[in-house]
């Protein structure tokens, strides 16, 4: 089926708000090339479970597409129309299953050596979109906080090497009440700038008490869901003929209710958390991977004003078969390895925050939990500097902000 043949009834299985949106833009969809449209529909079909910022962004993107003249459309999508698709892709039910289509499209692009051309087309589209739909700056500078090294007294290697050139390194931090100061800062920002999903706290272990205006995700709270997913994976991989593609498709179709998830946090956050485990790699087995991916996805999707991300020790490496098998054995931890993971994770948190609008004013703090080392990044702090002055986290926070 070609986009120009789209009919309203084909969207009947979409969730209510997604269906409304799709029908509103049906005429626009009919004008788009097949190498592009399912990527867009993959966003549309998830509309009911998207964060407010994502919804707004998608609506703006759709409105922009609708506003393009035929001539503009040709300019915007010339490279996409040059991508050659297979007959099987054209016959695929890409309206009902856009994500699966995109997965098959990806395999097709690799095998037909069109991946570079598609990548070029996609980057060009993103560039044009950014010029046409200017992203809104945040109402206050974003503030990302990473806390690493829980359970370690002495780092085996210098920490924050990748972050230090971008900010000030503090080597004599007084750690007293450090975590509480950080939580208080998050709470204060949540109070000053209240908005749904604007302030996040992600913990690799058990979550600490936090105010209700803060969205919280923790590895420990996800334990039962992780166990259910691992059991599901284990059962599926025992089946004959089950391959990685089929398993990935099956995982992508899992819903919170399929995994016994009954949280009070609402369908949007439930959906987000399930995706962390079904789409993330390593998130099912390593808490450090879970936290890094959760922070990345929260920043990418919800674009929070505040994020406090606390890494915790992950389990020690074991054979993948054992890691993926549900087990009641006591988990052996690897705090030092986790510190290295988290050090890189903190750097990635900062990078991901810098990808968002308003990055020139963004603030960032990374701290070695209960220890003396921290790095702070702010427009007001000189880059690549070191301070050996004794200071507590409250003092650093006042310098940053």
């Amino acid at each position: 089926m070609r986009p120009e043949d789209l009919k309203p009834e084909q969207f009947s299985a979409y969730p209510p708000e997604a269906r409304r949106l799709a029908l509103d833009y049906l005429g626009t969809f009919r004008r788009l090339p097949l190498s592009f449209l399912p990527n867009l529909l993959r966003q549309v079909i998830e509309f009911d479970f998207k964060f407010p910022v994502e919804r707004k962004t998608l609506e703006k993107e759709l409105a922009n597409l609708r506003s393009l003249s035929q001539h503009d459309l040709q300019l915007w999508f010339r490279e996409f129309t040059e991508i050659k698709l297979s007959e099987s892709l054209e016959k695929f039910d890409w309206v009902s299953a856009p994500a699966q289509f995109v997965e098959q499209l990806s395999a097709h692009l690799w095998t037909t050596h069109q991946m570079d051309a598609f990548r070029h087309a996609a980057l060009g589209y993103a560039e044009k979109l950014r010029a046409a739909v200017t992203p809104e700056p945040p109402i206050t500078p974003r503030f990302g906080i990473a806390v690493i090294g829980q359970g370690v007294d002495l780092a085996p290697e210098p920490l924050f090497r990748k972050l230090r050139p971008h900010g000030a390194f503090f080597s004599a931090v007084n750690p007293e009440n450090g975590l509480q100061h950080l939580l208080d800062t998050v709470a204060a920002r949540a109070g000053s700038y209240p908005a749904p999903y604007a302030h996040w706290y992600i913990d690799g272990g058990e979550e600490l008490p936090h105010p209700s205006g803060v969205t919280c995700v923790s590895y420990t709270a996800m334990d039962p869901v992780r166990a259910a997913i691992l059991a599901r994976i284990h059962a599926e991989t025992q089946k004959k003929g089950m391959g990685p593609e089929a398993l990935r498709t099956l995982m992508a179709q899992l819903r919170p209710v399929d995994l016994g998830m009954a949280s009070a946090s609402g369908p949007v956050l439930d959906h987000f958390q399930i995706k962390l485990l079904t789409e993330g790699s390593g998130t099912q087995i390593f808490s450090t991977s879970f936290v890094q991916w959760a922070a990345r996805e929260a920043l990418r999707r919800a674009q929070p004003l505040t994020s406090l991300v606390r890494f915790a020790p992950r389990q020690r490496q074991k054979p993948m078969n054992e890691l993926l098998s549900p087990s009641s054995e006591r988990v052996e931890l690897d705090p030092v390895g986790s510190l290295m993971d988290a050090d890189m994770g903190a750097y990635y948190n900062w990078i991901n925050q810098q990808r968002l609008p308003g990055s020139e004013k963004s603030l960032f703090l990374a701290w070695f939990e209960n220890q003396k080392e921290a790095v702070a990044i702010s427009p007001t702090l000189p880059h690549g500097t070191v301070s050996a002055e004794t200071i507590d986290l409250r003092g650093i926070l006042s310098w940053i902000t």
Partner: protein
Amino acid sequence: MTVRSSFRLTNRPDWLCGMSESNPRELARQLAFTRREFLRSAAGVALGSALLHAGPLVFGATPRSKRKVIVITFGGGARDQETFAPEGQDNIPHLMRELIPRSTFFTQVVNHGILGHYVATASLATGVYETINNFASLPPESPTVFEYFRKDLKRPSSDAWVVAPSNGFNRIGESSHRSFGPGSGARVILPKYLLSAATSGRGDYGHLLRDSYETPLYAPELGGNTFELEQMEMILKLSVDDFKAHARTLSSPDELSVYIVRQLMRQLAPSLLWVTMHDIDIAHAGAYSLYIEGIRRTDRLCAELWKVIQSEPEYTGRTTLFILPDFGRDSDEDAGGNGFQHHRTGDVISRTTWMMALGPGIREGVVYDRPVDSIDLVPTLGSMMGFTASLSRGKPITEIL
């Protein structure tokens, strides 16, 4: 749309400063240039172009028929910042201090194919960008280097071997091409499969039996003929008890592979030996410390194999060693990826890698910046050993011939 705005860092890592992202070819060239500068300062190597007017290479007294070649694929992809960049050189002390000064080094080896480990290794081994399913037990479609070698030079099956990490690599020794029948390629040993059979899944060997990291949720089924335990006893003169006892002293699948390689070299002394390392690919689980650990181990194992070459009478003075990754990993800067964790974006850093060649007749401490294609390896081996890779799409690398 899934493609997000490109990353805007106000401060880029020092080693990337000045690189343009707009032109992938230019970025690859600058990447190569930067690698050369790192090597020149750290390992004291010379630029290859300075030697253009030097005399022809002298291959010594070894006739072609006695020449041996060992190819090591460097562990599943590693990036510059964890290897050849200043901040990464601590991870590869053996390459930096022992091997690079003895080698001709190519700074810009570009893989234009599919960035999956099995299919990319198959492409390296055929000299054609293969498009087979990365996760299926399928042979390469184009003739392999092993088939060319054996047919043209009339070599027995004992003269070409592959030692590979995962079940998925069992078909890599010979192609499905009609010009070459079954049994005309290399024998493939899967050390993990052997150990698993030897221990019947019992005992403390789990750390050596880690599966493919690219699809941690799924272990590929074994296809094709398998090298079994009885053959190990007969051909490698290695009893099951000795194998198990030695395996207990090892810490990773690649160490197990190197142990088997040493046995092969001692017992059969094959002229063409291909070793695929894989420990580094644990990066897919998202744990940075385990990725670094994999790089450090692979660095050590490469040096160990070089020492074995120097000490084994059948190999010393007549063996050329090639070391190259099958491809890189995603850059931190590509918003479509998640940094070191995967190799999915197809960005320049994930496609551009390096190669070193060492041995008699190879100039020592020389660096070449010009682009070399991944598929150039097979015709180069052909020219070196005296066979014609007639269906390869690559070109011989003249600088080492």
